[in-house]
C-alpha cells in the first residue's frame, strides 16, 4: 500500500527521485493510509520538544544500535521496533531529522540494511519544515501496532567492514569528516574524549569531501549539477565506480551514501560504519596524515 511519489521538478534530475519528498508534499499527504513519518535526530530529546503531527521517533542510538555489541540491531529487534511504530513491510516511510537530515539518512541506511523498500527522506528535514512555519506538536503519536516480519539484515550490499576496505584499495574512498579530522590535526571532538581513536589522519588514497557540502543553506540537498561538480568533478568519481564512504562512526557517511546512491545513481556504494573510531585504533593498517590523499596502498 505504497503512497505515490513526489513529482517535484528538482527531484526529477536525481537518479532516484522517488527517494525524496518535499515539505509541501508531506504536508499534503500527512495522515495518508500507508504512510508513516519518522523523526530521527542526533539529540534524543529533540522530538519531544515538538515534531511533525503524527510522526514517530526512532533514535539512532537506543533503537537502531545493539546495546552491547558494536553493531546494529538484529532482525527480531528491528521487527519489534517497526511494529511498535506502526510500520509494516509495505509502508511508505518518510524520515526527517535535524542537522541536514544527517541522522535521518543514517536511519534510512539502517532501514535499507533490512531491505525496507519504500523509505524516503524529507528534503530539508526538520529545519526546513519549521522554517516554513509548518505545524509541529508535542502530542505523542499513538501508532497502532503493526506486524513487521523478521527479516535478516543484509550487510553485503551497502555496508563495508575493515577487511573490505583493505581489499578495496585502488577504488575510490570518500572521507566525509571535517578537514581537521582528515589531516590529523584533530583526533577527537572536544569534550568527547571517549569517542576518539588512538591515531589521527585518514585512510590512504581517500578523497576529502565533508558530508555537509551536499546540503544547501536551507538543509535541502544541493542540485544535481552542484553535486556532480563536487563528487565527480572535485573528488574524481566516475560512473560505474565502486565507492566506500566513511567518517567517525558511520553516521555522517550515511548522508554521503544517500547522495551517491540515490541522488547521483552510483550502483555500488558502501558505508564503512566502523569508520575512523575503528581504523584509527586498529593495529597495522595504513594511515596518512596531512591534507593530501597519499599513495594507494597494495590490497591485502
Amino acid at each position: 500500500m505504497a503512497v505515490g511519489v513526489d513529482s517535484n521538478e528538482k527531484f526529477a534530475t536525481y537518479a532516484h527521485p522517488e527517494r525524496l519528498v518535499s515539505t509541501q508534499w508531506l504536508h499534503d499527504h500527512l495522515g495518508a493510509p500507508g504512510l508513516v513519518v519518522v523523526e530521527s535526530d542526533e539529540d534524543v530529546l529533540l522530538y519531544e520538544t515538538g515534531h511533525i503531527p503524527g510522526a514517530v521517533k526512532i533514535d539512532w542510538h537506543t533503537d537502531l544500535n545493539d546495546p552491547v555489541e558494536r553493531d546494529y540491531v538484529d532482525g527480531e529487534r528491528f521487527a519489534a521496533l517497526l511494529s511498535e511504530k506502526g510500520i509494516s513491510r509495505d509502508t511508505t516511510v518518510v524520515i526527517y531529522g535535524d542537522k541536514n537530515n544527517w541522522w535521518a539518512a543514517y536511519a534510512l541506511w539502517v532501514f535499507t540494511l533490512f531491505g525496507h523498500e519504500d523509505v524516503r527522506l524529507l528534503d530539508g528535514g526538520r529545519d526546513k519544515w519549521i522554517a516554513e512555519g509548518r505545524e509541529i506538536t508535542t502530542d505523542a503519536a499513538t501508532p497502532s501496532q503493526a506486524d513487521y516480519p523478521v527479516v535478516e539484515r543484509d550487510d553485503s550490499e551497502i555496508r563495508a567492514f575493515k577487511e573490505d576496505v583493505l581489499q578495496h584499495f585502488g577504488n575510490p574512498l570518500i572521507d566525509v569528516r571535517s578537514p581537521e579530522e582528515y589531516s590529523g590535526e584533530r583526533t577527537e571532538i572536544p569534550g568527547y574524549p571517549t569517542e576518539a581513536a588512538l591515531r589521527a589522519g585518514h585512510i590512504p588514497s581517500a578523497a576529502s569531501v565533508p558530508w555537509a557540502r551536499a546540503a544547501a543553506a536551507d538543509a535541502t540537498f544541493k542540485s544535481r549539477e552542484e553535486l556532480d561538480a563536487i563528487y565527480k568533478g572535485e573528488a574524481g568519481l566516475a560512473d560505474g565506480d565502486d565507492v566506500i564512504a566513511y567518517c567517525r562512526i558511520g553516521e555522517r557517511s550515511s548522508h554521503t551514501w544517500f547522495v551517491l546512491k540515490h541522488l547521483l545513481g552510483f550502483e555500488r556504494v558502501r558505508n564503512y560504519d566502523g569508520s575512523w573510531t575503528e581504523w584509527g585504533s586498529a593495529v597495522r593498517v595504513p594511515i596518512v596524515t596531512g591534507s593530501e590523499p597519499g599513495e594507494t596502498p597494495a590490497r591485502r
Partner: protein
Amino acid sequence: MTDTELPESLREIKEEFLALEVRERLQLLLEFANELPDLPERYRDHPDLLERVEECQSPVYIFVEVDDAGAVQLFATAPRESPTTRGFASIVSQGLAGLTVEQVLAVPETYPQELGLTEAVSPLRIRGMTALLGRAKQQLLRKVAA
C-alpha cells in the same frame, strides 16, 4: 562516596530520576533542559562563544564562579536544538549551585551514570554529562589556583 555523602542538591536530583519509569525520566530531563536559564549578561559576548564546534556533538559552554562566601555557581549555554545537552547542563548547574569548592571537587565522576538515564539516552550520550562535570571541576581548579 556513598549517597549520604552526596550533597543534598545532587542527591535530590538523583532520587527524582530514580523514582520514575525509564521513559518518564526522559520527560524529566526535558524539564531540566527547559529550566536552564539564559547566560547572565556578563557572559553573553564572551569570546569562547564565538568558537562554535559545528561538527558532531553540540557545543556547550560553561562558566564557573566562586562568590565571596566561597559558594560555587555554574552558568551554561547550549543550543535550543540540543535539549539533551541543555538538560545535562541544567542538572550540573542546579546540582552544584551553592556548594563549596571542596564539595564540587569531591562529586564522584560516576554521578551521571547513577541517574538511571543510561538506558533512556544511551551510554555514549551520558558521557557528555561526565565530560561536562569534568570540565566544570577543571575550570574550578584553575580558578582556585589563580
